[in-house]
């Protein structure tokens, strides 16, 4: 493994651990009351990200496999959540009309907070994995 690869693995490990922590603290520490529709996807994403973070940081042999699963799960659920939030906003805007800048700002903030963790990061991980697999192995 080259030094560059090693640095990327550590970076993804740290970022996945950070994402999982933000999700766990945000959903299970702050949001009340408990509701399975939010808790279950959040727990699944956090779990796979934590497992992949451990694998990457400890340089375990299954680390890339775990990273691939974590990235796909996060990416698919992330796209789904962002799509649902956007479609809900559009539906409510259609029903209620222009309901003011504050509501629009809150909706945009939710999207802006979700996209880096649930779409951008897993997409970068998947792209890196694809390139790794395409490279000839010694």
């Amino acid at each position: 493994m080259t030094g560059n690869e090693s640095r990327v693995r550590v970076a993804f490990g740290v970022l996945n651990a950070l994402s999982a922590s933000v999700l766990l603290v945000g959903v299970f520490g702050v949001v009340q009351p408990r509701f399975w529709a939010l808790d279950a996807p959040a727990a699944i994403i956090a779990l796979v990200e934590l497992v992949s973070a451990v694998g990457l940081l400890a340089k375990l042999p299954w680390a890339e496999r775990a990273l691939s699963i974590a990235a796909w799960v996060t990416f698919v659920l992330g796209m789904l959540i962002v799509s649902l939030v956007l479609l809900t906003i559009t539906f409510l805007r259609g029903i209620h009309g222009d309901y003011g800048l504050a509501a629009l700002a809150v909706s945009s903030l939710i999207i802006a907070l979700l996209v880096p963790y649930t779409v951008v990061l897993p997409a970068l991980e998947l792209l890196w994995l694809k390139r790794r697999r395409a490279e000839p192995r010694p």
Partner: protein
Amino acid sequence: MTWRTFLRLLAIWIGCLVFCALSIFFSVRIDRSRVAPGPYVVTVWERGQRSARQVVNGEQELTHALEAESAPRGAQRIVERIVDSAPIFGHSWLMIGLSMVPGQDGLFVEFDGRTRYMTPDDLRKLEAYEHTIPIGPLSLILGIDVSRVLGALARELATDPDELLRRGRFRRFAVVSDAPYPRKVSELEITAATVKDSIQGAARYLVRNQQHDGSFRYELNAMSGGESEVYNYPRHAGATYFLARTANQLRDERVLRAAERAGSFMKDRTTLQCGSHACVGTGDRVDIGSSSLALLAYVELLEGGLEAFRAPALQLAAFLRSQQRPDGEFKHFYNVAEQRAIDAQVEYYTGEATFALSRVQRVSRDPNDLEAARRGLSFLVARSPWFLGSHYFWGAEHWTCQALADLWQRAPDRVALQFCLDWQAVNRNLQFEAPPAPTTHDGSISRGPFMAPRLTPTASRLEAAVATLEVAYAAGLPPAQIDVLEHQVKRAFAFLLRYQFSPGPTHLMPKPRALEGGFPGSSIDLHVRIDYPQHAAGALLRYWELAYAGEPH
């Protein structure tokens, strides 16, 4: 996956998402600003009940529609012109509930070749707007109570609600109604005459609905004509306080007599012994809120020349002082059975006690009352410099700024003034502005973008806003700052006056006379509880005292 593939997939996803979003938006949206093309729903109402309905398509037909039916004395013909409509997707009660805007939309259904219109008036009459349902541990607020609406429509169509939901084709629609409610009031119409009329109307509502023993009919339902069985003593005290203030300011003997009866009801029936002091309440545990509001009422009655309330007022003041902690906060409860104070706190009571102690000092001349009020106010407005959020998180506590205004000449508190100015700045952010909000909501305080605003939260904040305005004048704040505050206040008053029952949607009301002058909960909650006129007209009275009391009328 290469970058190129990834970007291509991302573009496809964004494209699909935009297409779906635009399709949904343009399918469900309604243009409420259109000129009404029809059809026109013509309804005749008699004694609050729908007696006839006809749906017509042209202006020619409209002129003569239900002419004969509306001829009898007391019958009212109302025309609701449909300006736009949109489909409701699916056959799901959840989609119907989510697709309706409370207070503005009507529901159309086509079933087995027959059609029915549930207009905004029908939905108001049915009390079917806004319905909270539990989804897991969450509460979801729907635009209408779908079960109730489907039940009513199913009865009209002689079917059952499930069948109607399964086979009916639903649309929502917006209307322009020729009903004279809500009234068209703008801030320009906030004048000495309109303000005074509104106050007198609210006071007369309470006087009209007072029982022989001095208590009030607690809550009247304008849609059914029925009344609530429950009673609430702090709210009784608040209503008494408003009546006594109105009597003193407007020199109205009849209102003063009503206030005296209401004051005697509290004094004679609800005064208990809390340790060595008198207190107001019922049961084994009393709160200082009842005693504070009773004290406010007694002070006003005393100012009206009723000396019988002097001793009870001084006793209540002593009780409130005995409940105060060294840091200025109050112990909000007292256990009468065990004769001990309970050091627990809830919203409002500290502000009420502080304001009451400030008011009573004007008649007691006791420096202890003034000092207690001053310390209470300091406690209320203290904000930790270490908590940034203290400037952004606010409750609905509206007594603090009234205490500030009352204390200003005797114990001015600049920190409290800044606190109240900051709170009003937050309230300005929450104030609906038309456009984009509906004209009828302009000036009200938002409960959220998907719910109809309520009158009392707007009114209670207004009491504080006018008190802040009073101090802003007295403290010599810059005119620009005062203008902003006054504009905010007048817009909110216009909202309240729009919805006051003067005389209200009489076509929907079985007993309009009993409700006249009252303020309802909201545009869709047409109940009048005794504290609604107290807060709304109380704020107006404050403004009348500030802006017009010295003017010749």
